[in-house]
């Protein structure tokens, strides 16, 4: 992956997946930055393998209802709300 140069097209595609509008000069800027980021990740290749945690399986809880958040707390951090709903821009 990191052998392939990052192209402006890649950046446009990723931006569209992330629903972000980018101007042409930003595309150029991010194309360079993407390449840098991928290079940083390559550093991880140098990390030696570590022992895995003991493998867990079948971690489950019984199907019994516990209290939810009250709706006031649930909406507390939302920038905008309406009638108990989270409110956001139109999305299609």
């Amino acid at each position, binding site marked *: 992956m990191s052998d392939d140069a990052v192209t402006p097209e890649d950046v446009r*595609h990723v931006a*569209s*997946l*992330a*629903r972000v509008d980018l101007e042409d000069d930003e595309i150029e800027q991010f194309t360079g930055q993407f390449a840098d980021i991928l290079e940083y990740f390559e550093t991880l290749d140098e990390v030696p393998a570590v022992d895995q945690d003991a*493998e*867990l*399986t*079948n*971690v*489950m*809880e*019984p*199907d*019994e*209802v*516990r209290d*939810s*958040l009250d*709706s006031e707390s*649930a*909406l507390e951090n939302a920038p905008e709300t*309406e*009638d*108990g*709903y*989270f*409110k*956001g*821009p*139109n*999305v*299609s």
Partner: protein
Amino acid sequence: MCDGGDWQMAVVQIPLRFTPVGSNRHSMTAQTVQQGDLVTVIGLEVHVQLETDTKIFCRCSTEQTDDPNENVCPVCLGLPGALPVLNEGAVEAAVKIGKAIDAEIPEETRFHRKNYYYPDLPKNFQITQYDEPICQEGELEISVEGERRDVRIERAHLEEDPGSLQHVGGSIDTADYTLVDYNRAGTPLMEIVTAPDFRSASEVRAFLAELEEVLEYLGVFDAGRDGSLRIDANLSIIEGEEADENGEIGIDALEAANRTEVKNISSHKGAEKALAYEETRQKNAIKRGRVVEQETRHWDESRGITVSMRSKEEEKDYRYFEEADLPPLRVSHWKDEISIPELPTARRERFRSEYDLNEEAASKLTSTKQVADFYETIADEFDPDLAATWVADNLLGELNYRDMEITDIEDRLEEVTRLVELVAEDEITAKNARETVLRDMLDDEQDPDSIVEEAGLGKTDDDEVQSAVVEAIEENPDAVEDYESGDDGAINFLVGQVMQKTGGSADPGDVNQLLRAELEK
């Protein structure tokens, strides 16, 4: 405002194909295909909500509420640091489904993250299963126009339902803003993926009906719940010459044909209509020499058409990767530990042989588990034929007329049993039981004994009937003469007279016998 069907966001989801190519299992329809024929090929992805008390990755209630964002917590709101914990009940339901469709439950199965950005997913990814689903390679037997067929099920996997969106002030494209409710987010879903084994929209409908029945028998699904069944369908048209000598269509021809994925289907009827529409649309395009585009289309129920959706993503864009917050599952042995009830097809067969029912009655009486259970109670206590008439015709007929289901009178089934007992013991006539008592029971919620008493429907004493018989003969010498001179129809007139005298509470068959006996004297 949208219809709340936003789970089918505008993305192309290329169906996952993990079934080995060239698998030696037969395609379900071996039919003769002629040169020049256009063959329709359909495969389904059916999403069913599992009936659990809590969500799949948190213990918020799945109950439907009037207010938005009532059953939410840090996990299903995707708040930072919140960790999912799998619901054992959802896994049990998945294993039951696996057993019912005779699927393999692999030794190990795990969850993946499917990444896409849309506000119905607060985490920006959906926890689902990818290449290690909990059920693989099952099948479901359906009956289409009296013919039995197996539909192959490639896989069935667990995932979480997204939240629901409302587009306010316009359609999905023109709305002013969006309101988001996460009550539904995290409801357990089973996505059931079939092989491309359907050749018509009506086969799809038969399959969905059978699937719903099976899921309801298993007690893992509530068809009455709004949005509990959602269907995506892949449809392509293959030219007849692509079929092999057995009329079967190979994987190569399937892969080569352009298909459309039709989304936003939410019922059997909707599926049949949407697919019939899409089939005609594609066939018309081919007949006019146009190319059918490979795309995602949205079923617009109110207009009865499918419309093209903008395609944004393909499978690689979902960047599936393992969900590290959920350890793998090893539950293949649950298949032996969890029992499932007798399924509709098997029960239908047994009803036919054990109770000697015809196909129609057997199918009516096994349409839901509750009906079948009730029938068996009555049949075992009284008589299978009487029970069939009472449950399949009288009870279901009257319920259907009132737009009710057997589940609506669940706590009154003992009263219905008592009514059948009154008939079985000859305490009231079948006609009165059906036309008066049963109807009053359903309309006025009274118990059968008080209705019988109040309306004086108890069968008249034999003495009373006998004296009415004697009176009728005395009062109608002309009819007696006709009868004696060989006009057997005259007896019906006399029966009518006796019935009138006894206020309809005598049994016409008995009266007929009594009259004949009296006239022979």
